[in-house]
Every structure is written in C-alpha cells, then in structure tokens.
C-alpha cells in the first residue's frame, strides 16, 4: 500500500535535514587556520611523492562481480521464503534446481581460485 510509505518519506526528509544540519554546523562553528604543511596529505611524515589515486588490484572487481551474482540469488530467496508455506515440496524442488546451478557456478569459481586473496 502506497500510504504506508508516506511516513517513510517524511522520515527520510527529516534524516536528510539532521545530517545536513550536522554538516553545516561543522563548517560554521569550527575555526579555520590553514598553512601549507598542514594541508599536505598524510604520508607517515614525509612529503607525498606520487599521485594517491593508483590503480587497484583486479581482485576487488572480481569480488564485486561475485557479489552481484549471489546478491541476485539472495533477492530471489526472499519471495520464495515468504510463500514456502503454500508451495511446500513444489517450492523446495524449484529452489533446489535453481541452487544446484548456482552451486556449480560457485564450485567453478572456487576451483579457478577466484576466491583466493593471497
């Protein structure tokens, strides 16, 4: 029902206002004293040498990819879990087929070493 979401919308506006107030207060109340060495990025006390934004490992990309796959899987679980009382064995078998295929995927990634972080 759409009307259930009206309080959520108001609450969202209030939360954003509270957060906005916090961020504004941090600008208004705090003193500002700037000088060059204070504004250098921290690098254990030495002057930073090369740019900070370096290329990251491809592992992170792989993790995000796997996360999407299993997140989609989890999302399919929710409606199934809620109505399993009605579906009974039919529902269990449906999900077993679905999971079996995904477990093949997990086994494949596992064997190829996609889960290693050494």
């Amino acid at each position: 029902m759409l009307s259930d979401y009206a309080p959520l919308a108001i609450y969202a506006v209030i939360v954003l206002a509270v957060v906005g107030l916090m961020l504004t207060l941090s600008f208004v109340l705090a003193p500002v004293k700037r000088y060059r060495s204070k504004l250098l990025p921290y690098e254990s006390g030495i002057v930073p040498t090369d740019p900070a934004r370096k290329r990251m490992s491809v592992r992170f990309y792989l993790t995000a990819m796997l996360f999407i796959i299993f997140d989609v899987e989890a999302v399919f679980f929710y409606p199934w879990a809620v109505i399993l009382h009605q579906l009974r064995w039919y529902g269990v078998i449906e999900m077993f087929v679905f999971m079996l295929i995904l477990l093949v995927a997990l086994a494949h990634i596992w064997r190829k070493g996609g889960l290693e972080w050494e």
Partner: protein
Amino acid sequence: MIRLDTPDPFGIYSNPVGHWFVVVIAMLLLAFVLITATAYVVFFERIALGWMQRRPGPNRVGPGGFLQLAADGVKGLFKEGFAPVGVDRVLFVVAPGIAVASVLLGWAVIPVGIWGSITYWISDLNIGILLVLAVSSMNVYAIMLGGWASNNKYSLLGGMRAAAQLISYEMAMGLSLVPVFLIVGSLRLQDIVGFTVHWGPYSGPIPLLLLAPVSFLIYLVAAVAETNRAPFDLPEAEQELIGGFLTEYSGFRFFMFYLAEYLGVLTQSTLIALLFFGGWYLPLIPGAIALFIKVVLLVFIFIWLRGTLPRLRYDMLMRLGWKALLPLGIANVLVTSILVVLLS
C-alpha cells in the same frame, strides 16, 4: 504508521494537521534519542574495555565520568575540520553524511516505542527488514567515497578494502535472514517478534535463536563485519593503514563517521534482539524494559568481541566470508526449507 492509541484530550491527534505534527515531532525525537543513545554506547564501551583491561576508563567528567561523551561531542563541534590539498571537496563532505543517513534511515521499520501492549514504529511496510538491508547497502558509498576523495594512499586502500569487506558480508547477512523468513513467513519485524509456537502445553512466543541457531551465528559475524568493528576492523586498521578511509578526516566530519559506526552497533544489536531473541517478550518483565535489557547485552557482546579477539588478516577475512559463511548460509537455507515443509 505511528499509532497513538492513547487518550487524546486536546484533539491534536484526530485533527489531520495535528496528526502529522505529532508524527514529525516523534520522528525528530527518535533521531535525537538515537544519537544520544549512541553516545552512551561509546561511553559503555570505554567503561567496559577499561574494566576488561584493568584500568578505570573515563571517570573525570561528571559523576562516574558520565558526561565525558557530552564533553567530547561539544569539543568535536569546535574542532577544525580541514581538507588537505587535492581533495575532491564535494565528495569529501558528502561521504560522512551518507554514512550517518544510511544507518538512521533503517530505523523507519524498527519497532521502537513499546508501552504495554502498544508498539510504535514509523512505517509498517510489507518489505519490512529489506528496507534496512537496502539503506545500509548505501554505506559502501560513504566509505568508498571517503577513501577516494581524500587524495591519500592509505585512505584509498582502506576504502577499497572496506568496500570489498562490506559487500562480502552483506551477502552473508542477506542469506542468513532467509531461514527466519522461511519459519515466520513474513519480512515484517513485528511478525518476526510475534511468531508463536504451539508445542504441547506451551503456546506462545519463542526466540528464533532456538529455531535458527546457524542463522544467528552467521548474522552475528556479518553484523560485526558490517559495522567495521574488531576483529573485522581492517578498513581502519591503525597499525597498518594509519586510519584507513578516516586518515584525512578531522573535526566533526570524523565524528560523523564515528557516530555512524556506533549507531550501526546499536542498530544491529536492536535487530538481533528483535530477530533472534524474541524482541520485547520476556517473562514477568514489561516489553520496553525487556527489549532494553536484550539490546544492552548484545551491545556488550560487540564490545566483548573487540576486547578479546585480535584483528584478522585480509585474506583470512575474505576466506571466512566467501569460503565459510557463503556455503554455510546456502546449506542453512536448504536444510531449513526442508525442515519447515516436513514439520508444518
């Protein structure tokens, strides 16, 4: 929807404008109470850690050090929050805001006010706890943007590590809730707390911990990892990464990340109390106090873990998430689904 079944002598609540006025005041009050309670979670942690490490902890400001956090909060507001050169200013400022908002928003579906037989909550949604999962998944952006915007090597590496950790354990968390939904047949927290069993002579509410113990274990581990708490505090590992994504943050923006972390502890403790410990049900004790006791005990578990366990190495963390919790979570779903159909 917030329900007020109390007497309404001035006719405020029956008038439509007055109704929304009351609702807005109640929401502001909730935000205020949450932020204050978070301060006391920090205080509780410092006292408890002091006690575990045989030192007094904060004991100077106010009676028993009780006003330490108020003092720290005021001090934080007046500290300079500067941004170093090369920082992406917009993202640098927005990131702590996302962190706080993503935790606060989840409270929309958590039943908060319990008085006698009445429970109040902001929105009674069919998607229930999915809303908490959805808004807390936005926390990844806070940490990643904080790390990226800072123009610092430690920040970026910490932010990336944190993001990969958060998504890995978010998946475990999502899977661990499925057995609960299987047993209860609803995603609403009120239905989960109010789940009743009829076992011979006993008929009444039951803590789901007894019915889904594996889910509780996975959820607890995932909750600790999601809030970036020790032993999963690699994103801000001081000894290795200076402070991770927090390295360049100072002043009140640092406080906001800190607030978000402890607000997360409070949120997860409340959720665990509602999901697995029967929420406001406890024999002989009124609902509000029962829930409060359970939340305090669970917050203590978070602190206890921090005081006891050493930090994991990054490859161990990922191995635990992907090679242990993911298969365990899937097996847990399968076994529970068979049991639910067999026993119902």
